[in-house]
């Protein structure tokens, strides 16, 4: 078995985990992050993209609100290029009238230090013509839209530049444990490289469990009980932006009351349903109906707008079971010190929280780890911009502008999201890549209205020419692993032909273009099937014709091959009928 050793192992490649490994590396710790799939594959890649101002929590949870505005200000500096400064409104719709919530909201904002300004309704309607004209009050707050994929990638790149090692597609199979009951110590993790089928033992002084909704399973490997109730929430994306600011309902937080502009689409969210299994991402009919009805209250006509996709993410809701739980940090995220809590040294669990506060969560987790490691070094993440932050906020038209200025129109692979050949090639070469879905998270491949119906075939061809499908994930030099310009057509010229065949992955058992194609289309269909009506149905009819009739896609050879994600993409998504009744 291959053996590695380090000071800190971080489990989980979502926002929290990458925050932890970044923080640890900046403090000079030797650190390794392991993630069983791609970075951001879980909850951090399945949210609505809201960078909270804190406004949502000022009444319900003022501590959380303070954390949000604090982190909001920091991330605007450290991760500027991952953010669109959309601003946000809290609006009082006719349904919300007659409550004292708006006044409590104003007081709450003042108390939590969330900048809030009431503006005339006419002004808000001028800025957002699709907004419900019957709203009675509007408050402006510094909400923003954040690209979770880019944020995670940029953070990881910063961590790598500080010396951290990142192993994606490495699944934790067990924790390495010494000692006996009552005096146990976690000394590292056993991981399996899912691409090469190799087992690796990583010795570590400290293991930080940042596996989110899966962190209960990790803790259980050390015999510690952490009750995570995965709370599923669905999000619906319109085919184009219907609002350019974040729109929140000014009422007690509930389902379907946030509408966020995210790149070329608007996303409405969300629901909150406890599920047994965090992999259970099925979409219920009542959830979709709820989103449409609530959307209609914010932006009349929402129900008739083309819905392009639906997806679900699972919040890691921690259920307090121990009296010794560390509750002094915040009510919104939880740091579990398993040495004091369970008598298991060398293991910390950091869970709960939200993407906006990932940096703060990481800071607290590494503070605790550093204390155990006997090296109390100050946290540097609040003042260290990640690569790319110097570009400043992104804006909606930036890709189109660069494509136009560079004359790259004939280089487009994904026409909907303006992904050029060069962007795709460089993302595939520089970022660990197993399948096209990983490239989607890198460059937004297939995220537009046709949902991969056209670009999948082109992208497979490009990757096949590069011979980069299922690239070896751990052999990439840090300097090559660039993310600062991941989203920039201008910064990614195509060097078509020059690098073809350079990596020689054809020997890799997983490398198969037909598998790439099938996996990605299957992944895209998952999010379309539950909302396939109206204009999106027309789209899918055309996509189906292309796949079945023109490309004969269902009869491509090697149908028996599977990638580490094939089963996930094929998971049963049929709605649960009994849940439907409960909500009718």
């Amino acid at each position, binding site marked *: 078995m291959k053996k590695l050793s380090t000071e800190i192992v971080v489990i989980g490649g979502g926002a929290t985990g990458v925050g932890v490994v970044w923080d640890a590396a900046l403090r000079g710790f030797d650190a390794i992050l392991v993630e069983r799939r791609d970075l951001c594959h879980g909850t951090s890649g399945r949210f609505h993209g809201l960078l909270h101002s804190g406004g949502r929590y000022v009444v319900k949870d003022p501590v959380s609100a303070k954390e949000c505005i604090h982190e909001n200000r920091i991330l605007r500096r450290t991760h500027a290029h991952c953010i669109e400064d959309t601003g946000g409104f809290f609006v009082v719709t006719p349904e919300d009238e007659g409550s004292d919530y708006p006044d409590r909201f104003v007081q709450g904002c003042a108390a939590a230090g969330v900048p809030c300004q009431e503006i005339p309704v006419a002004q808000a309607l001028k800025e957002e013509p699709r907004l419900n004209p019957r709203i009675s009050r509007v408050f402006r707050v510094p909400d923003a839209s954040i690209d979770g994929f880019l944020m995670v990638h940029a953070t990881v790149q910063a961590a790598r530049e500080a010396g951290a090692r990142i192993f994606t597609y490495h699944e934790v199979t067990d924790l390495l444990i010494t000692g006996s009951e009552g005096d146990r110590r976690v000394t590292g993790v056993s991981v399996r490289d899912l691409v090469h089928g190799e087992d690796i033992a990583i010795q570590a002084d400290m293991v930080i469990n940042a596996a989110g909704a899966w962190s209960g399973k990790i803790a259980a490997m050390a015999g510690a009980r952490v009750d995570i109730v995965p709370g599923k929430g669905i999000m619906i994306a319109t*085919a*184009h*932006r219907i609002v*350019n600011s974040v729109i929140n309902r000014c009422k007690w937080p509930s389902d379907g009351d946030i509408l966020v502009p995210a790149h*070329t689409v608007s996303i409405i969210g969300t629901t909150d349903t406890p599920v047994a299994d965090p992999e259970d991402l099925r979409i219920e009919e009542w959830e979709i109906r709820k989103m449409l009805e609530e959307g209609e209250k914010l932006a009349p006509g929402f129900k008739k*707008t*083309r819905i392009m996709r639906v997806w679900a993410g699972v919040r890691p809701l921690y259920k307090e079971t121990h009296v010794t739980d560390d509750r002094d940090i915040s009510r919104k995220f939880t740091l579990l010190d398993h040495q004091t809590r369970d008598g298991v040294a060398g293991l910390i669990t950091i869970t709960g929280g939200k993407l906006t506060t990932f940096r703060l969560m990481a800071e607290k987790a590494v503070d605790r780890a550093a204390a155990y490691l006997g090296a109390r070094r100050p946290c540097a993440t609040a003042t260290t911009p990640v690569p790319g932050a110097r570009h400043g906020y992104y*804006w*909606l*038209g*930036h*890709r*189109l*502008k660069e494509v*136009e200025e560079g*004359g790259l*129109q*004939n280089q*487009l692979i994904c*026409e*909907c999201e*303006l992904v050029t050949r060069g962007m795709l090639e460089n993302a595939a070469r520089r970022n660990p890549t197993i399948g096209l879905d990983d490239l989607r998270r890198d460059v937004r491949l297939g995220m*537009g*209205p*046709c949902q991969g*119906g*056209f670009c999948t075939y082109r992208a497979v061809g490009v990757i096949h020419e590069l011979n980069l499908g299922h690239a070896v994930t751990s052999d990439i030099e840090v300097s090559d692993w660039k993310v600062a310009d991941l989203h920039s057509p201008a910064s990614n010229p195509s060097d078509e032909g020059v690098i073809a065949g350079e990596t020689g992955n054809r020997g890799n058992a997983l490398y198969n273009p037909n598998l790439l194609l099938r996996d990605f289309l299957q992944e895209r269909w998952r999010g379309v099937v539950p909302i396939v009506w109206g*204009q999106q149905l*027309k*789209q899918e009819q*055309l996509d189906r014709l292309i796949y079945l009739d023109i490309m004969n896609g269902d009869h491509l050879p090697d149908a028996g091959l599977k990638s580490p994600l094939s089963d996930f993409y094929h998971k049963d998504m049929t709605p649960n009928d009994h849940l439907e009744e409960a909500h009718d």
Partner: protein
Amino acid sequence: MMIDSWLPPETTLDQCIKCNICVSYCPVSEVTDRFPGPKYAGPQAQRFRMADQPSPDLSVDYCSGCRVCNEVCPNDVNIMEMNARARAALAAEKGIPLRNRLLGRNELLGKVGSYAPNLANFALHNPLSRIAADAILGIAKEAPLPRWSVTGTFGDWWEEHYPRRLISDKKVVYFHGCATMYYEPFIGVAAVLVLEHMGYEVIVPPQNCCGLPMLSNGEFKAASKLYDNNLRKLGPLAAAGYDIVGASTSCTLTLKEEAPHLLDRHGEAEQTLTHAVWDIFEWIRERLDELPRDFVAMEMVIPYHPPCQYRAHRAGRPAMDVLEMIPGVEVHESHARCCGIAGTYGYKKEKYDIAMKVGQELFTFILEEEERHHTEFNACDSETCRWQIEHGSGQDSRHPIEILAAAYGLYDLNARKPMASPARHERWTEVNTAGGA
């Protein structure tokens, strides 16, 4: 039907399913890389545009506005309108070049030139001026710019005709447009002759430019003013129930639909005007029972190019339908996508070559027809198209209303002026005897 279509054109972007049919038909993207195609510039780019942010795309300026895309789109995406509005946003942001301002002001140019048309023609058309206009303004030196009428404006003729005009209970309003007023008064003469021959009293109210040249150059504010003026002048006539006909397909389209649609004007007065305005052949075709059949036989093949604006009129090929009623006349439709000129597009130096390449399939058709059937002229309803066709093919082009007027023996198709009246009666007798009617 019209009211349903008053949604902002941008909202139709969601109807796009990326099928590429528009791309495969677009005559502009076929001949130049400068225009990436209707799908890219329309529904795709629209997802990246946002009010109050800089216009991200410049290539939308290379859309000629021919509307082939709108016609072939199976999902009713208003691509051309989306592009026109994006171009207006671009113009508002970057400023409008002097050239485009000039090209947008054909009414003013027409008026000024008409004071001394010979001088104006010399000033504009001598080779030195054209070279200077090319170098300084960016107006292509080869482009087929019109000539001012040296025999007076349409207004002059109308004034002279006025005392002799037909007085009738049946009345129709005539919108002549700028080109007929200042460059080609004979089109208006032919139109009035036909309308009177149908037994209608023609009303020519005060009117001004429809605003299309400004709309297509992104000058929405100024175009809005022109539309307002026309609404004030024509609106009461529309409200009183008069039909308003025009022989320039682009002017009528602008009054009818383009201006209110692009400028977001959907009031009651606007809709009344919309419903009152007709292309002249669209109007005639609705009144075939009133159309006299005293045609002079004309043994000829007429190659006919329906201008792009007919696509937006959604009226089929009314001129063709009517001309084919003339005994001996065989109309051959071009089936070409566009002549290339697209209003003022082909006048622009950087677009002249594109316009000529776009028009090539039409020019080839015209020349093949000439060789096969010895045609002497072709027909097209729109003035700038006719100038472009003449420029590209070398063959004379006529408005179908001229041909119809000639078929009644009222108009000399070669000299482009009214016939002396006795000729008509002789021929009328001839035809009726020969036809055995």
